[in-house]
């Protein structure tokens, strides 16, 4: 079956929409961006070949509005839709509606998305396939008085429709259960529209390790290595690396076997990720399977040399995975840090504002996938992911050294980001040794105050610019060989010496 994709609508925004548009341009496929009123001048709109407005800033009225997205696809003449991650990417109703409209959905079949989107059904399917799951419920929890099935405390409450850390709460004692359950349900309804919550044993210490899968429509399946995503805050990933420093060849073989079994329990093609917790004894426990591209897919691309979005598109068009993809061998070590507008010194709370200075790193072994640039507004309507900084080197020590260098080169002004946390992390002895788990931030990050030297430098910088700033803006640039500033405002360095 061949379904040629000539024009692809990207039902997303930010860095992932830019990233997908890049692959479209390389493959000669027209890309169509969609945007809410908040994003009319966004980078992802500028990068796509064409753009369609889909509604007002709240996601429910634009990026989550199935009708608006399908109408945009029809208006633009798109023949396929890529959902990216988040938003409608794991919405089976959306995937089915795309196919019903005669378009190609770039992802697994709708029934598979539905089966795995219900986290409880996924747990039952994994257990039936002989894959170890995190001990706990496989049906929703009725209420604080419900059957906790001998799970014990502490335990984790999770949204049955969950993902991305939303609707998740750690419960330390029976006394906390009622309040936590109410909070988890409230967040689950807000995020997914479904209040069902279940309980799992809290495995700690644990590492969060996941396996990248890529499959075609004929049943070929590639296991493209694992990723370690244990550095988390609010149960959301901040750092991902491949290979995992905790995964031995034996553990890897067991992880791949479990991942294949879960995928084998459903009709599967396209890209997906099977997530596990790895306990202190090296045993893995199935968490969930995400039937979409992950935020962190880039580190797998760096070590395999594959373009996962290109392969998603080729598989969607009916192509088979060649031997070189199925047997791809990873090279070296890759690490990603997620550059969010958030404040590590204030509990990693998201912040809004306007990005001013925006300098990303370059040179050997660096990949930057950004969704913003200088003068971009970070609005509270959406996830505040600004960019993903990725490094690739021959080994883990080289990748960490490179990441430290990349962070030294990276400057974002205007909004606080988590870059300062990463700068601390690369010098944290446990991280350097590969010895960390999902509690790294809770246990080791103390939000240290600025050093005396840092404060002295900040004072120096501000004093200097207060002195030269107004003088600089009042002068016109001397003008080069030709071409003047349009606005006479690009005051120059030379004038300031």
């Amino acid at each position, binding site marked *: 079956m061949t379904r040629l994709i000539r024009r692809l609508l990207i039902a997303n925004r930010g860095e992932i929409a830019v990233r997908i548009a890049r692959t479209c341009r390389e493959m000669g496929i027209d890309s169509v961006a969609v945007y809410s009123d908040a994003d009319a001048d966004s980078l992802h709109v500028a990068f796509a070949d064409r753009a369609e407005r889909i509604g007002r800033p709240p996601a429910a009225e634009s990026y989550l509005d199935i009708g608006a997205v399908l109408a945009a696809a029809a208006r633009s003449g798109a023949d396929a839709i890529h959902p990216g991650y988040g938003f409608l990417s794991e919405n089976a109703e959306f995937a089915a509606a795309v196919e019903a409209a005669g378009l190609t959905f770039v992802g697994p079949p709708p029934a598979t998305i539905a089966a795995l989107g219900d986290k409880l059904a996924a747990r039952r399917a994994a257990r039936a396939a002989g894959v170890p799951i995190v001990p706990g419920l496989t049906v929703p929890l009725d209420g604080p008085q419900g059957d906790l099935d001998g799970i014990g405390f502490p335990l984790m409450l999770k949204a049955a429709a969950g993902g991305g850390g939303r609707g998740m709460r750690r419960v330390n004692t029976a006394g906390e259960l009622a309040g936590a359950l109410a909070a988890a349900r409230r967040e689950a309804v807000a995020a997914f529209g479904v209040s069902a919550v279940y309980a799992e044993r809290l495995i700690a210490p644990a590492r969060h390790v996941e396996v990248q899968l890529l499959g075609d429509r004929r049943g070929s399946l590639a296991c493209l290595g694992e990723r370690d995503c244990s550095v988390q805050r609010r149960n959301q990933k901040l750092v991902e690396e491949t290979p995992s420093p905790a995964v031995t060849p034996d553990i890897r073989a067991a992880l791949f076997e479990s991942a294949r079994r879960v995928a084998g329990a459903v009709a599967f093609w396209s890209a997906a990720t099977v997530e596990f917790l790895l306990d202190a004894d090296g045993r893995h426990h199935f968490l969930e399977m995400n039937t979409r591209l992950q935020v962190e897919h880039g580190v797998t691309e760096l070590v395999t040399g594959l373009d996962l979005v290109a392969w998603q598109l080729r598989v969607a068009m009916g192509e088979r995975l060649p031997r070189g993809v199925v047997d791809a061998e990873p090279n070296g070590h890759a690490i990603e840090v997620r550059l969010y507008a958030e404040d590590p010194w204030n509990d990693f709370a998201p912040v*809004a504002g306007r990005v001013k200075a925006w300098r990303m790193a370059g040179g050997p072994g660096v990949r930057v996938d950004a969704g913003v640039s200088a003068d971009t507004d970070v609005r509270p309507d959406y996830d505040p992911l600004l960019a993903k900084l990725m490094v690739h080197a021959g080994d883990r020590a080289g990748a960490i050294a490179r990441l430290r260098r990349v962070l030294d080169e990276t*400057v974002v002004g205007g909004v606080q980001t988590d870059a300062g946390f990463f700068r601390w992390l690369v010098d944290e002895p446990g991280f350097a040794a590969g010895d960390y788990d999902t509690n790294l931030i809770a246990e080791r990050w103390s939000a240290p105050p600025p050093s005396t030297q840092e404060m002295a430098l900040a004072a120096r910088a501000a004093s200097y610019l207060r002195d030269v700033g107004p003088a600089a803006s009042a002068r016109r640039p001397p003008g080069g060989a030709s071409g003047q500033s349009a606005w006479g405002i690009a005051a120059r360095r030379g004038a300031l010496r």
Partner: protein
Amino acid sequence: MSGRYRARIDGRDIEPADGWQVRILDLPHGLISLGGDAGSILAAVEGSGEEWWVTLRGRRLRVELRTWRERVLAEANVAAQGAAGPLEVRATLPGLIVAVQAEPGSDVVEGAPLVTIEAMKMQNEVRAPRAGRVLEVMVAAGATVAAGAILLRLE
């Protein structure tokens, strides 16, 4: 020249690192480099007048810069206003109020949850910065607030 200003960060008087050379890489966006005996560092600077923000090693620091004249004016202002009044608790980011835990007239301990704001798809709890009595609650669940909006007053 920078000796003209008194710099304050986190409530502390800071002596500027005057031995460091400042190079401006992109003036409109405030990108600079600082170079000194202990190395070099890229940084971002925004601000004007007395209020500046400097991002160094990934951390954004608020820098208050005051000339002698500005200090005198500021101190006169404080003297004129007398002692501080009730504490206003403000939204640090814009969002939707999804729950209000604080009740007018009740006493709260430091760190007690007061209001839950949903922003960036996350639920964020605003907690009491110090113990006190809730004098007045300005918001209700379902309302949208702007950054900096007053949520409630603590005595």
